[in-house]
């Protein structure tokens, strides 16, 4: 099968308009006969389900949490980008498009990214209309902040809880559709299989996590909005339940997996404190707006941070990247932190940390406030007090979270931070219409591979999730379903449903019958360690080859020695986890295969063999300017398909933030 990305012809800024005015439509009466299944109720799923419900489709949503409002999007902190140019600082649709393409290290599709930039402004309008309480200035207008990889202020935010507020907006829109009877919601349900009829996705098998029962659900189309797979590393900033299962089942039913090795390691997270660690906590990128990152100039310096004088500190990002300073993109910042720690300049007990310091921001803001208040010769204490007030208003909840976790007061002592797995740019391969290689099966939000290339810029995931759900899928799904109006609902006693359900129950029975000695958690931890050591921030051929063998062996051990307590037909979180870890154990191998195939460094994918003299990522455009889309061919067998990327507008260059 050759990959057809279905990018509309024409000028970059006319493609989406042309598509919208020429795609097929479904009339209202027919919409009522068409059923759509939406897996996931994060920003992508909730916005899609609400919008499709409003249009009149019959929608079912599924999530594994106890309420749609708890999807992992809720945890997003920093903000959402949009090319509004409210700050009059030179922003435009083109610039957002350009920054995203460049930030992604020239591994994303121009057509998709331009569409994303075009609809970004509508997202903010929609959210405000729903009552999302974005931060505002005294004049009553919306406030913006800057994020990494850009030189304009285009990020909209709600304190450090932007994801929460956006998700609650989408959730409320969704609940309204539930009340109107257009959407039926299934919480504490996990999708475990895609049902295929005549080569098309026509439904799912889901497990009711309270009773353990398997359920069959029909849909004319199935939308996967199931989030990212960062938890393959065990430790990540993702929620504990985030998983790849929905996407992986789709992959095994024929959906290609795009760029699985593209993982984002976020530079500012609270460092690991011990073996008991169950997850890592992000300190939002917005903190790099005002905070300065440094390590001591002396190796192994054990002094307390506040005892180290200014001239003995190395603000290494400002030193290496004067143009962007602390606001370089995430991949660059993460690698720079690793470089310093590996070279022996790390701080804290583990020496796997660098400082993020707010002292100078507190002083700067304090002076501005003192000026506003007309204070003459304010004391140092007064300035600090005023400055702390400003910092608290901007980042208070993050500082509080830091203190709860570490027991240290970040207003007084610089925070210790270290990179951690955060986001997966890879995901199910989709075309311009967000359709996977399986007809009728779509992927939205973090679950698809589409818009961020090899590195996502901050505040762009929320934008993409909502763009996909509110503004793209309502058009592109209609274009598909217009040909399906004669298809009657397929009864769920159809053999395809029976067979799919049997597959799921066989697998669950098999898992439960192993009755081994090692817990699911410990397998997950072991997998995570292999992935982090050999397919993490830096990768090389030898390590990846080893990792592939180690994962295979671990998978074998899992299937012969995992211990899952409890029964099938009851609330059993260990069984839920086992289902997910079993899929991670397959995905991990594919990620390593993909990383091994890509003999270049780009964005978050850093192959040690391919770097410039000063340690920057070295792309090989002549060989790897393509999306790697992998087809599942049986256990450990994957076939590579290439979607060549054509840059008609932006000219790929060596990315420079100096």
């Amino acid at each position, binding site marked *: 099968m050759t990959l057809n990305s279905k990018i509309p012809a024409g000028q970059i800024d006319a493609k989406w308009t042309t598509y919208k005015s020429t795609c097929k439509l479904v009339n209202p009466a027919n919409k009522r006969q068409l059923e759509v299944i939406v897996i996931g109720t994060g920003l992508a799923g909730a916005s899609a389900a*609400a*919008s499709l419900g*409003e249009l009149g489709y019959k929608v079912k949503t599924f999530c594994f*949490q*106890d309420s749609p409002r*708890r999807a*992992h999007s*809720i*945890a997003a902190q920093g903000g959402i980008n949009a090319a*509004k140019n409210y700050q009059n600082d030179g922003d435009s649709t083109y610039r957002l498009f350009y920054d995203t393409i460049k930030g992604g290290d020239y591994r994303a599709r121009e057509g998709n990214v331009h569409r994303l930039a075009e609809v970004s402004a509508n997202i903010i*309008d*929609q*959210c*405000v*209309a*729903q*009552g999302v*309480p*974005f*931060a*505002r*200035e005294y*004049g*009553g*207008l*919306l406030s913006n902040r800057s994020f990494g990889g850009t030189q304009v202020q285009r990020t909209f935010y709600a304190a450090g*809880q932007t994801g*929460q507020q956006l998700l*609650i907006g989408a959730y409320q*829109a969704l*609940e*309204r559709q*539930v*009340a109107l009877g257009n959407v039926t*919601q299934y*919480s504490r349900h996990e999708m475990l299989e895609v049902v295929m009829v005549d080569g098309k996705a026509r439904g799912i098998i889901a497990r009711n996590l*309270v009773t353990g029962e398997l359920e069959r659900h029909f849909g004319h189309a199935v939308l996967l909005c199931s989030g990212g797979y960062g938890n393959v590393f065990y430790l990540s900033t993702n*929620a*504990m*339940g985030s998983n790849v299962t929905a996407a992986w089942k789709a992959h095994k039913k024929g959906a290609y997996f795009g760029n699985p090795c593209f993982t984002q390691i976020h530079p500012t997270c609270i460092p690991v404190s011990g073996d*008991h660690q*169950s*997850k890592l*906590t*992000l300190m939002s990128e917005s903190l790099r707006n005002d905070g300065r990152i440094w390590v001591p100039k002396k190796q192994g310096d054990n002094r307390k941070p506040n005892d180290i004088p200014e001239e003995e500190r190395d603000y290494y990002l400002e030193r290496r990247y004067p143009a962007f300073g602390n606001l370089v993109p995430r991949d660059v910042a993460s690698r720079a932190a690793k470089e310093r720690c590996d070279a022996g300049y790390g701080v804290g007990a583990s020496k796997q940390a660098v400082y993020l310091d707010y002292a100078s921001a507190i002083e700067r803001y304090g002076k501005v406030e003192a000026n506003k208040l007309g204070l003459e010769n304010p004391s140092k204490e007064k300035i600090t007090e005023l400055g702390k007030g400003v910092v608290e208003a901007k980042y208070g909840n993050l500082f*509080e*979270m830091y203190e*709860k*976790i*570490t*027991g*240290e007061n970040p207003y007084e002592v610089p925070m210790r931070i270290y990179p951690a797995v955060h986001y997966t740019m890879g995901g199910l391969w989709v075309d311009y219409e967000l359709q996977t290689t399986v007809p009728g099966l779509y992927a939205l939000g973090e679950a698809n591979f589409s818009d961020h290339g090899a590195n996502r810029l901050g505040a762009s995931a929320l934008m993409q999730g909502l763009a996909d759900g509110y*503004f793209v899928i*309502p058009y592109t799904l209609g274009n598909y379903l217009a040909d399906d109006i004669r298809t009657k609902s397929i009864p769920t006693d159809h053999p395809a449903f029976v067979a799919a359900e049997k597959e799921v129950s066989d697998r669950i029975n098999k898992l439960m019958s192993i009755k081994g000695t090692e*817990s699911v958690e410990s397998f997950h931890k072991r997998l995570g360690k292999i992935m982090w050591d050999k397919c993490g921030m830096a990768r090389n051929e030898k390590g990846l080859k080893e990792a592939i063998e180690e994962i295979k062996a671990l998978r074998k051990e899992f299937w012969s020695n995992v*211990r899952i*307590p*409890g029964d099938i037909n*009851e609330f059993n*979180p260990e069984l839920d986890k086992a289902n997910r870890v079993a899929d991670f154990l397959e995905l991990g191998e594919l990620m390593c295969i993909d990383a091994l195939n890509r003999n270049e460094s780009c964005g978050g994918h850093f192959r040690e063999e391919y770097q410039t003299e000063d340690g920057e990522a070295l792309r090989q455009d002549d060989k790897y300017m393509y999306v790697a889309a992998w087809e599942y061919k049986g256990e450990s067998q994957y076939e590579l398909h290439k979607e060549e990327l054509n840059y008609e507008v932006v000219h790929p260059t060596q990315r420079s933030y100096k």
Partner: protein
Amino acid sequence: MEHYNMNLTLKVWRQKNKNAAGHFETFQVKNISSEMSFLEMFDVLNEQLIAEGKEPIAFDHDCREGICGMCSMHINGRAHGPWHHTTTCQLHMREYKDGDTIVVEPFRANAFPVIKDLVVDRSGFDRIIQAGGYISVNTGNAVDANALPIEKHDADEAFAAAACIGCGACVAACPNASAMLFTSAKVSHLALLPQGDPERSIRVENMIRQHDKEGFGGCTNIGACEAECPKGISLENIARLNREYLAATFRGGSKNSI
């Protein structure tokens, strides 16, 4: 921060399912680091139980960052435990010392039936939102975001109310098991914004009706909810809800209320 290890006694509520009778079971956990979170301590206990061939304790959690609202333990008689403005997942073990005994129960309320052990059913909250906790605006109907300036003070207050994570601690803390703090947080968030104005009467009426129908108790201004709310949702919101409700009934009720 100096860290230390401790041994603890845990008394945890066990209940097989909704219909089974529950009881407390006592466990010993050893070598718990003061740097662990409360839930990481439960992870250690569960791994220990699995190793012994016993069933681990079921509890709800997801983000472990204090924002999803999923975690829900009643710890030594307090919803989410002893720390102010803190969810269960953000409580850390440096609160405890060697030899302590900790009693852990689910959030208790008639409207929150136990599903298993420490896991309860809070779907009533979704239905309260369905009754009116939204602004009726379809995708695509919005005007430019800055066409509607909103006074910073109002925007900030709306945000403070919207910070509710729907955890249910307010219900668990309330002697009447009232969900008025939760309900009022949503009513306030939307009533404080001009976008929410057209539906203000119908919203408050329908949400309160659903609240009562779910079996949550009435509010008698005790204030335990505010004290235990991890997000600092203020009682002011209940006062505002009452004003909204009075105004709505004064207007003769909304024509559209169901």
